[in-house]
């Protein structure tokens, strides 16, 4: 019991939880924006890879950290644009297009990395984002030290949650995005462009996903590895449902996931292997499933999700 208390009472634990959650926050926000507009983006896993690779490579080639962040976002936006073209303009299956985008973004990233750096025998490194203290906030008791260990990208993720929530619920743009994901006809009948809104949402959402990848190579670590995204994108798809498509709950879900992961890592390190390690690793997935089952009936999902819209056709 003491062990558990010690873990939860340590600021380092909460710092780790927030750190682990950061890429998920980016990803889940991105997926949420896409889905709110009615487009499922299973390209997320590949877009993470693309963001991780593009951002890192840009910095490695001399672009500067924020330059890298921008490049990562652009890479994500580009794949988002492709997804939008396939699903919004051509109305192709969102599942398949998404999986295709994941395949394309992943392989294109690996190929680019290897073609650009053919002769490396150990992963080259960059100088990543460093933790910074935000005056005032970092002085808070307990939370302060947890926040103090975070880099600017984590701060950016937290600020983005607020921005996305504000835009979705407080602005005409958010209204339109929520409407287009529920019933595109409502948007069209009010003179707005269904396609424009959806393409915009997918592009912006994908850019955010790419930032999740960029965080991995530019803040959580300082090099790009093949396979390092390791399913984080898929987790975001689950978290969106868990969050009932709401930014606040998405943050909560990501933090819970981060806390759980941080907790299981510590438990394994402190009390050793009482049960097979995989049991711990399974827990976040099983808990997500449980949460889904519990909230499913109440969840108020975008009704037009997965449905293509073609102007001048009966729906």
């Amino acid at each position, binding site marked *: 019991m003491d062990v558990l208390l010690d873990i939860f009472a340590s600021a*380092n634990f909460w710092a780790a939880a927030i750190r682990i959650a950061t890429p998920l926050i980016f990803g889940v926000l991105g997926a949420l924006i896409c889905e709110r507009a009615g487009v499922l983006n299973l390209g997320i896993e590949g877009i993470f890879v693309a963001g991780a690779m593009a951002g890192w490579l840009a910095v490695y080639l001399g672009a500067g950290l924020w330059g890298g962040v921008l490049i990562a976002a652009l890479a994500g936006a580009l794949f988002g644009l492709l997804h939008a073209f396939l699903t919004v303009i051509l109305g192709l299956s969102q599942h398949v297009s998404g999986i295709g985008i994941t395949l394309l973004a992943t392989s294109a990233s690996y190929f680019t990395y290897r073609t650009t750096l053919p002769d490396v025998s150990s992963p080259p490194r960059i100088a990543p984002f460093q933790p910074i203290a935000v005056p005032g906030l970092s002085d808070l008791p307990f939370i302060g030290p947890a926040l103090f260990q975070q880099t600017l990208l984590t701060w950016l993720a937290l600020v983005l949650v607020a921005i996305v929530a504000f835009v979705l619920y407080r602005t005409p743009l958010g209204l339109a995005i929520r409407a287009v994901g529920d019933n595109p006809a409502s948007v069209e009948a009010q003179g707005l462009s269904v396609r424009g809104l959806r393409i915009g949402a997918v592009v912006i959402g994908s850019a955010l996903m790419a930032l999740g990848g960029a965080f991995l190579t530019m803040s959580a670590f300082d090099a790009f590895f093949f396979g390092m995204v390791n399913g984080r994108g898929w987790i975001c798809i689950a978290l969106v449902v868990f969050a009932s498509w709401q930014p606040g709950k998405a943050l909560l879900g990501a933090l819970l996931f981060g806390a759980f992961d941080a907790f299981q890592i510590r438990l394994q390190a402190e009390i050793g292997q009482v049960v097979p390690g995989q049991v711990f690793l399974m827990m976040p997935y099983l808990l997500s499933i449980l949460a889904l089952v519990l909230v499913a009936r109440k969840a108020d999902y975008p009704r037009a999700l997965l449905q293509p819209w073609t102007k001048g056709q009966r729906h």
Partner: protein
Amino acid sequence: QDVPKVAAIWTVPVEQQWASRLHNALVAAEDRGEIDYVYSENITNTDYERVMREYAEQGIALMVGEAFGVEQPARTVAADYPEISFLMGSSLPPVEPNFATFDNFIHEPSYLTGIIAGMKTETDQIGMVGGYAIPEVNRLMHAFMAGALSVNPDVTFSVSFINSWYDPPKAKETAFAMVDAGADILYAERFGVSDAAKERGIFAIGNVIDTAADYPGTILASALWHGEPMIDQAIADVKNGSFEAKDYGIYAFMEYGGSSMVVDEELAGAAAVEAAKAVEASILDGSFTVEINDSEPTSTQ
């Protein structure tokens, strides 16, 4: 006569520590003009046999790779191409006439780095982060632990596997957790662990490759694997027709120069270095043998 053509098939990207040691040795041999080197990386075990056959059909002299996940098919391919020499990482014995095996037996320097760590730790807690609990990881961890315990019976170890070969952020988080729990030295089997050590201002022990330059003031000592003795020997054997189906694993032993310990004498301190060097000498003169234990290591508390 043409230089012999050598093909390597890696199940991982060539930056991965393990593969990089052999890949670099092969690239060096090619640079010296001794061989013609081609390779495929990140080949899944499902595709492995096909790739082996494709290279075999191209008419190569020597194939280097990893049979761990494809022991039986690899041997079948070798049997189908008796004119080609196979040098494969494997946990099973070699097969006549052309299937030689090896593994990274760097448990000896691992033991030595354990001595350094055991003498150096102040909290008597050492954190160890690995990828998967497979034999070639396990044996290094056990040797390291044995080395540490030989000089400091009070040391406890916490062991975690991150269930991935390439997830440095996760390895780093796992290492952080160990530091938070009191470890003051980290055994860095994976990329990411030394980063955590450096960030928290503690020490790390390197494995397979020397990363001291990347983490100034952090890496106490590393157990290095050198692919060159084995690769060069195999190339020579192929060239003069004396390649045989034997276990090339011994070329990883310190005796053959296949592995070594590198230590930062300033960080480690004279006493620790001296203790390690003493054991190193007795390993080299054959008076001391490091035990090989492939079972999964667990935390000791």
